[in-house]
C-alpha cells in the first residue's frame, strides 16, 4: 500500500517537473514560421532551380558542351546544339531542364566548365500539369 501511494506521489512529482519545462517555453516566442505570410531565410548556397548566366553584354556563356546533361544521374537536362556560322562557335538552340525529374543534387553545376550553370535560392515549383515543370531557355537564362 505504501509503495502504491509513493508511486502516485512520484508520478505527480514527475508530472510537475515536466510541466515546468513546458511552462518555461509557454512564455517564450513561438519558433513556428507562418509559411505563406513569413518565410525563413534561405542559405545562399541553396541548391534550388537552375539558372544559366550570361556575360555583361547579355550573350549566353553556355557553349553546349553537354557535360551537365551527361553527368546528370536522372537525365533531366536536354539540349540542342548548332554551330553558329556568324562566329563559328557552338551554341545551344534549346536548353530544357525537367524539374519534375531533377533531384537537385548539384552535380551539373559542379561539372560545368564555363561555370555558367548556377543554382538559385528559388524553391517554388508549382504547376497544374507536368509540362509546367519542364523549363526552357526563356525561364532559365538570366540576362
Amino acid at each position: 500500500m505504501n509503495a502504491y501511494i509513493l508511486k502516485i506521489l512520484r508520478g505527480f512529482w514527475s508530472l510537475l517537473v515536466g510541466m515546468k519545462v513546458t511552462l518555461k517555453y509557454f512564455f517564450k516566442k513561438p519558433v513556428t514560421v507562418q509559411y505563406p505570410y513569413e518565410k525563413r531565410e534561405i542559405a545562399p548556397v541553396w541548391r534550388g532551380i537552375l539558372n544559366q548566366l550570361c556575360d555583361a553584354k547579355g550573350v549566353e556563356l553556355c557553349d553546349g558542351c553537354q557535360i551537365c546533361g551527361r553527368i546528370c544521374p536522372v537525365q533531366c537536362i536536354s539540349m540542342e546544339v548548332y554551330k553558329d556560322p556568324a562566329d563559328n562557335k557552338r551554341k545551344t538552340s534549346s536548353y530544357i531542364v525537367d524539374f519534375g525529374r531533377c533531384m537537385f543534387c548539384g552535380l551539373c553545376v559542379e561539372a560545368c566548365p564555363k561555370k555558367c550553370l548556377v543554382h538559385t535560392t528559388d524553391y517554388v515549383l508549382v504547376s497544374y500539369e507536368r509540362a509546367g515543370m519542364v523549363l526552357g531557355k526563356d525561364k532559365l537564362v538570366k540576362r
Partner: protein
Amino acid sequence: MTENTLKDKDGFETMYLNMGPQHPSTHGVLRLGLVLDGEVIIKAEPDIGYLHRGMEKLAESRTYQANIAMSDRFDYVTSMNNNFVTALAVEKLLGVEIPKRAQYLRILMAELNRVVNHILFFGFFAMDLGATTALIFGFREREEALELFESVCGARLTYNYFRVGGVSRDLPAGFIEKAGNFVKMMRSRLKDYDDLVTGNVIFQDRSVGIGRISKEDVLAYSLSGPVMRASGIKYDIRKDDTYSVYREFDFEVPVRENGDCFDRYMMRMLELREALKIIEQVLIKLEPGEILAKVPKIIKPPAGEAYVRTESPKGELALYLVSDGTANPYRLHLRAPSFINLQILQKILTGVKVADVIAILGSIDITLGEVDR
C-alpha cells in the same frame, strides 16, 4: 498474409489484426499482421516491401558519383552517414588518400547527423507512447541542425555532400561558431528532455521491462547499433574496427544491461551526448587545407570488390561494392541496419500486449526507406 486458422490455448478462435501500412506509428509503410488472443499477441508477421525502389539494381546503371547522390535516399534520416559509407567503399576500390580537413569535415557531418537521428528518435518514441510535446521539441532542435547542413551543402534532407576523395564544399564563414552554439544549446535542451520524458513515471511504466532482447538473441539475429549495446554488448565499429580518423577522437561507448525499451531509449540519449563530444573535438581540431583529393573526372576503379562497414546511428551500415573496371558499379549491396534489426520483431512481439507493439517497434528505430531500399 496467412489465413487465420490459429486457435488460442483454449481452442477458441483468434482475431487477425492488420496494423499498417498506413498506421501513423509504424514509421512509414510497415504492415504488421497480428494474431490476437484477446489482447495478447500469439503471432506477429511483419510485412515489408511497400517502399521498395530497387536501389541496388538502380545503382548498377549509375556512375559512382551519382550513387553517392542516390545513397541519400537509403535512409533519409541519416543521409550523411549513407554518403559516408558509399564514399568510403569507392575510395577503397580506388585507393586514394583523403585530405585531413575532408576527413574531419566528414566526421563532423556524420556526427551531426547522428544527433539529428537521435533527437528525431526521441521525439517519435515519446510520441508513440503518447507524449506529443516531445515530438515538437525534437523537431525544433532538428531544425537548427538542418539549418547548419543547409548552410554547408545547400539542402536540408538529401545532402549529397560527400565526393569521391573528399567533400563538395568547405564550411561557410561563421559555421564553427554556429555549430559550437548548437552543441551548447543541445546540452541544455537535453536537460529539458530528461525532465520531460526520461524521468516521467508514465513513460517509464510503459518502457521499463518491455520488449526485452537477450544477449543471445542479439548475437543470433546479428543486431547492431544501439539495440545491441542496450543488451549489454559493448561493440562500436568506430572504436573496435575504426575507419576514417575516428581513432583521434576521445569518446565513450555507452552500454546498458537490460535490453528493454527504456534501455534502448537511454542508449540513444547517451550516444547523443557522445556525438556532441565528438563534434566539439572536431571543431577544435579543424585546420585549413584541401577538401578534395585529386581524383579523375570519370571514376573508373580497377576491377575488384570492397566491403566497408561503418557505424550509422541505426547500427552497422555496410556496403559491398563490386567493380568491373567500368564507370558504373557491377554490384552494390547494402547491409541495412534497420532491415536486420527489424527481424527480431517477430520474436519479441510474441506474448506481449497490443499496446506495447508500438513501444517495441519505436524503440528499435527503423526507417522504412532503408528496410525496403
